[in-house]
């Protein structure tokens, strides 16, 4: 998807994948590190060739906040930074639990809903 003859940039390509329910990150052909958000070059080594790869979907909550919102507007909600097992971090929301139950270190798993990546808490083993 980083072929210079490709008809679109990586942002549009990743958006289209999301709309089809697929969550992708990138992996650099130069240094083999994973990259998120999608870029036209590797921010680690500058290489211009990156592959779109499906992450395993497992992650850990790295930082957390509860955004306060009036009940009439939908109430409080979670915003988290999630570290994926592939070594990249992203902003998202952990759902299925109340915002105050989302804590740093919590294991979460990714899913795509309405064209964005969300996370659910992994059930206690």
């Amino acid at each position, binding site marked *: 998807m980083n072929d210079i003859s490709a008809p679109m940039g990586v*942002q549009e390509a990743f958006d289209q994948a999301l709309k089809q329910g697929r969550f992708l990150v990138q992996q650099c052909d130069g240094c083999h590190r994973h990259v*998120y*958000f999608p870029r036209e070059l590797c921010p680690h080594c500058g290489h211009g060739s990156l592959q779109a790869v499906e992450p395993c979907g497992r992650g850990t909550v*790295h*930082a*957390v*906040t*509860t*955004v*306060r919102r009036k009940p009439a507007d939908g109430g409080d*909600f979670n*915003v*988290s*930074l999630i570290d994926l097992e592939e070594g990249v*971090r*992203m*902003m*998202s*929301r952990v759902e299925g639990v109340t*915002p105050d139950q989302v804590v*740093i*270190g919590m294991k979460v798993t990714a899913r795509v809903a309405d064209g*964005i990546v969300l996370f659910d808490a992994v059930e206690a083993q």
Partner: protein
Amino acid sequence: MDKSMRGKAAIVGAATFGCGEAPGFTDMELLARAARMAVEDAGLTMADIDGLCTASASATMWAMPVIEYLGIRPTYVDGTMIGGSSFIAHLLPAMRALEAGQCSAVLVCYGSAQRSAKFGRREIVASRRFLDPQPYEMPYQPMLPPSAYALAASRHMYEFGTTREQLAHVAVAARAWAAKNPEAFVRDPLSVDDVLSARMISDPLSVRDCCLVTDGGGAYVLVSAERARDMPNKPVYVLGNGTAIYNRQISCMPELTTTAAFTSGQQAYAMAGMGPDQVDVVQLYDAFTINTILFLEDLGFCKKGEGGPFVASGAIAPGGDLPVNTNGGGLSCVHPGMYGIFATIEAVRQLRGDCGERQLGGLETALVHGNGGTLSSQSTAILGLESTL
């Protein structure tokens, strides 16, 4: 870091205008009033100004209307816009321009009617979604900027055991300083309990952990050290300046608990040939209470992770060992969108001895630190009186 620029320029004029509420004024009018007063304070006229540094949070080509409005013909223009740290980051390039003879008197100026403007914050937030998109954060509706700082605070609490009470001490210290400053917008007493029980914005930050939204203009004038000696005010020399950026978005910050202030501070200290133990007073950009803790750590005033106990000890409040934000800071004095220039002006006023009830004694050096974006850009300057040259 090039030490040859150490002390080669000095701030010789400074002014603020309309800090707090200035209904009926535009951004440009606030800037122009402050600019004229700063130039006058320097013993100069607008005709002497041949260098301009300015930035706006809304107008991308802001230097042009400012030049037009002030009626100046600068041979040096810096419109670098990296958020609230811009007006500190403008220093070193301006020093080089002065040293090279490209200009002889640089005006650094800012104005914002953010509190009173009819085109309000809601509209600005909406337009930024298109003008400055962050497509990998925006879908999750973080309340920016507060949520970004809240995320960093959550991580600091997790890694180091920092508490909301410790964060609250930053706001309480700022308010205690503001009580001594007639220009401060909010001066009534504030307790730790007041901060903790205030309306939550984005956990762990309550509204009292967040800076004010005010109007205000600020300006200062920079000339060569040689010229500064013949001017009416006690020159405030620029001993060091460094600027660093690691990221724009909080989700891309390499480590949430170490900001680029670590790098900008190292650069500024290296240029000044000084360390934090030689700094007499600190003015830093306290957009949120966590900022003060992060920057005190990153700039070496306490160890990483010890910022919470440090501020809770009373060290940064009036009477403490390390006076921080003696005007009341962005939390209690003034915060019209971007604060960096006001931190600089307070450092100049303290070094010149212009601070009335809050004036500190025996000052020779000051550290000024600006932050921009969401813990994104960081610029550090070290200022000093003639005795430090």
